[in-house]
């Protein structure tokens, strides 16, 4: 009872503690993905709500809602929390507004590096970074005398050694679920090989080449070392495999580390789990990984008063030193005052090694979609790498023509 009272009093008086951003008018309605760091961010933004109307929708299906909801006029949401890839359809449809004036007026705590500018216009304010990197089981590696892998060739050799030792049947795991996840793995590996997806300055595809073939062959090698059901495994599924102790090396999002390292599950596995840098591939020196940012955007089809209120609340969260201190292990925050912990290793190493961001191009979504469907048959062994890449380009060309890119 006492606890409840304390919590209640915090809820009641906590909001008044930050009177500096007390918003008087306008209405705020946020659409965001659903993971702990974003919940923390939105809760921090709520501290500012004052007498303004404040609503939030956390949904894993946010991508499917966003475009229709922001196309309506007035739009359902005033704020959309987006990432490199999900900002693209918003930009293509001209659904978000530039916020240069708001940044000047209310964005005191926001660092310049947090601003996403396109042609000089601030279209989003980033607050956290993410990437996919390696997770290793130090105990298994030590037992078999294997050093921490630095390249995907090392990963293959190490996994083969672990399998040969009879320790694990499927020592490697990555989210290879047909569709978005599988395409993302291709994107990572292709960038690691130094590939470019489009011919410079155009929307013409450029993946049917030696780098594309090398990418597919590496994916196939890794797939053969994974659980045979890999084509149905997303990030959640491979996390379960990891916690069950079936996997020794894994490629997974940095933002998913939270539940892997908590107190639940086998303490031995948790203690031996180590987050390391992303691997390189094919002798390249940049990691086979893409950098991602999460940031907030403001809907265009909403009155200026709502945009102003929304910006003030979100800017408060995106520059809150208390928040990043309190939630230091939830994400790699881009906010000033963030002190990286052991869970940030992957992202920080990736940045140091010069990893590239996921391409923020208007036609990238079409390429991503084509990849997710067309390379499956190669992995199943029903098609050659060249044929698979030819199919991807053909499928992409058709879609790009319909969308007016070619």
């Amino acid at each position, binding site marked *: 009872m006492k606890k409840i009272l304390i919590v209640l009093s915090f809820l009641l008086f906590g909001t008044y503690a930050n009177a500096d951003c007390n918003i008087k008018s306008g209405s705020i309605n946020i659409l965001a993905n659903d993971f702990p760091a974003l919940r923390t961010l939105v809760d921090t933004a709520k501290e500012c709500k004052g007498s303004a109307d404040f609503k939030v929708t956390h949904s894993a299906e946010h991508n*499917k809602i966003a*475009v229709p909801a922001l196309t309506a006029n007035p739009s359902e949401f005033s704020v959309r929390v987006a990432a490199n890839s*999900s900002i*693209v*359809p918003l*930009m*293509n449809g*001209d659904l978000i507004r530039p916020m240069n004036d708001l940044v000047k007026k209310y964005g005191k705590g926001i660092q310049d*590096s*947090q*601003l*996403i*500018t*396109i*042609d000089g216009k601030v279209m989003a304010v*980033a607050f956290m*970074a993410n990437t996919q990197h390696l997770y290793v089981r130090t105990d298994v590696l030590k037992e078999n005398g294997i050093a921490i892998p630095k390249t995907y060739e090392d990963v293959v050799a190490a996994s083969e050694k672990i399998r040969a030792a009879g320790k694990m*049947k499927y020592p490697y795991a990555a989210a290879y*679920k*047909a*569709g978005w996840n599988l395409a993302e793995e291709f994107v990572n590996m292709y960038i690691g090989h130094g590939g470019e997806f489009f011919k410079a*300055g*155009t*929307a013409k595809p450029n993946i049917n080449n030696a780098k594309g073939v090398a990418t597919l062959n590496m994916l196939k090698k890794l797939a053969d070392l994974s*659980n*045979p*059901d890999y*084509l*149905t495994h997303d990030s959640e599924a491979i996390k379960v495999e990891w916690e069950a102790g079936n996997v020794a090396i894994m490629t997974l999002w940095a933002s998913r580390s939270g539940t892997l390292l908590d107190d639940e599950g086998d303490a031995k596995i948790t203690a031996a789990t180590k987050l390391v840098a992303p691997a390189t591939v094919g002798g390249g020196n940049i990691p086979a990984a893409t950098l991602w*940012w999460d940031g907030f955007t403001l809907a265009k089809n909403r009155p200026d008063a709502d945009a102003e209120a929304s910006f003030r609340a979100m800017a408060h969260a995106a520059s809150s030193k208390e928040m990043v201190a309190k939630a230091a292990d939830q994400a790699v925050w*881009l906010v000033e005052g963030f002190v990286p912990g052991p869970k940030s290793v992957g992202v920080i190493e990736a*940045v140091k090694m010069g990893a*590239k*961001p996921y*391409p*923020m*191009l*208007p*036609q*990238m*979504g*079409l390429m*991503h*979609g084509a990849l997710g*469907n067309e390379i*499956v*048959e190669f992995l*199943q062994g029903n*098609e050659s790498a060249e*044929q698979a890449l030819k*199919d991807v380009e053909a*499928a992409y*060309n*058709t*879609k790009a*023509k*319909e*969308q*007016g*890119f070619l």
Partner: protein
Amino acid sequence: MPNKSFFWFFIPTGLAMILFIGLPIISTGVQSFYAQHDQILKEVKKCDPFGCKVSVQIDQEATSKIREEKPLGKFNGFGTYVDRNHLATDQLSNFWNESNSAGEFLSKVGNLPFYKALIFTFTYCIIVTPCVLLLGFVIALSLNSISRKIRGALIFGTILPMIVTPLVGSLVLFWMVDAEGIIGANLQLLMNDPYLSVKSSKTLTWITIIIYGIWHHSPFAFVVFYAALQTVPQEPLEASIIDGASRFQRVKHIVLPHIYPVVTFVALISLMDNFRVFEPIIGFSAQGSAQSLSWLIYDNLVNEEVILFGSAAATSIMTIIGIAIILTPVLIRTWREFRTNR
């Protein structure tokens, strides 16, 4: 019923059908003939926390002008229908000229997304529909001759697959065929192959989805057949018993002809349902191995970050035409019977 009162009874339903089914289909049809305007791209400087880069971007000012003039998009005629992701007419003629044998031609055609989906959809329809009819009829016959005391409980158990939400039903089977699930692991033991995976093998995935389809749809056929069996007149049956007809002969010559119109009805509904197979593909995460026409529409609408309305509309219209073609023989037959009965 006089035509006039039929008309007044029908008007509310008719209006609702036009409003909620007719108009959307017309709108879908119109959309399928349009494509997006040419995107005007320009190179701009983009900066994010990881650095700056010059790359292409849609020129909003130029694009929005064109959009306002013609909001539907660029008229494309049958362009979307014949492109590679649909009927692929150009590719078909190329393959025909390039290929040395019919087998090579067919394997190339099977690699095109629309035909890939069509092959799976047809296979599913052709296997599931007769199996559902047969299984439903056999269950109905056996339950009809069982003691009345336990019949109620058995009927309830039989229609359970229909009560269970399709997605939940498919997920249960999905977990059972997992490499570590009860069926998946036992198959590995049985085949003595530790790398055998139902989910990664195309054939096994198809078989799983088809078995699921039969399991899910049979109760519907059973319920309808069971109801029809209650109307079979007892006199001819008793007469045939006296004449020494076997059980099989009785079913063939008396029961089946009597419930024949119902069989046609169930076949019609099953064909329509099966042609639109969708949920099991999502439930089994099987899009890698099995794609149906409905799944293609879903993929165009939600799986991409750019929504392909034209593509989805074209596939929808072709699905409607496909169902119409499949149903034609059954409908013609029903029509003929209707005429002769008059």
